């Protein structure tokens, strides 16, 4: 799965949308300009990654973290990005927390359901009239015997 930087482009539609939202109405972008911006964005990712990685290595870490990226932005002279990036990071972190809690809840619910399933089938039958219940239990037993 070794993909080269040249093969990995950012999705055209998204790049176009970001450009359009940044520019006033009525302004168009030629295909060549769009392609160049997309390429520039990929180069930016690689440059930022490399820069951030240097900070991580300096700190003797093998995992790139958010602080490394922010430090890289400063190094690359994109200080103007720092404020909005920090703000976005806060929101992102909260979102991630919520996601973890949701997936943990789901896991717990799954386990509960697995336990309850046996009991639930019994409960359904008990909900009916007693007479029917008795009959069903008898037939159930009968069926079991047949299966065996």
């Amino acid at each position, binding site marked *: 799965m070794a993909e080269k930087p040249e093969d990995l482009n950012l999705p055209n539609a998204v790049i176009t949308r970001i450009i359009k939202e940044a520019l006033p109405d009525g302004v168009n972008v030629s295909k060549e300009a769009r392609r*160049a911006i997309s390429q520039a964005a990929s180069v930016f990712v690689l440059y930022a990654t490399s820069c951030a990685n240097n900070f991580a*290595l300096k700190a003797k870490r093998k995992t790139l973290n958010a602080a490394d990226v922010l430090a890289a932005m400063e190094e690359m002279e994109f200080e103007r990005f720092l404020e909005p990036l920090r703000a976005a990071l806060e929101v992102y972190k909260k979102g991630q927390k919520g996601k973890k809690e949701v997936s943990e809840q789901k896991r717990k619910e799954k386990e509960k359901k697995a336990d309850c399933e046996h009991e639930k089938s019994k409960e359904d039958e008990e909900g009916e009239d007693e007479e029917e219940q008795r009959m069903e239990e008898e037939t159930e037993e009968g069926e079991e015997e047949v299966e065996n």
Partner: protein
Amino acid sequence: MAALVSSTEQESDRCGSEEENRGVEAGDGGQQQQTGPAAPGGSRLSKLPLARIKALMKTDPDVSLASQESVFIIAKATELFVEMIAKDALVYAQQGKRKTLQRKDLDNAIEAVDEFAFLEGTLD
């Protein structure tokens, strides 16, 4: 080679949806759905698909692992970068009394703006 696997298990559904869309990549429309339904919450903050950003980062042989947050910040920074370079290029289009951004406007911006120096010689 240690890849960016450990910290990104939560993104697996995002990666899955991206793989499904790969067949549709020729058309632009399909790509927009990647960050939408697959993973709620954080992913909506980034317009760019984190899985693709991560894949790009992985092409650097010196990078072993990257936290989810770092991938997100790079994605966000890239968004800001695109906005910035588009706006800077627009200045040159306007100087040429054009309403359409052209490749040469980009080249001018790259030459003129210090922060874009790293781009020199990198574009086709």
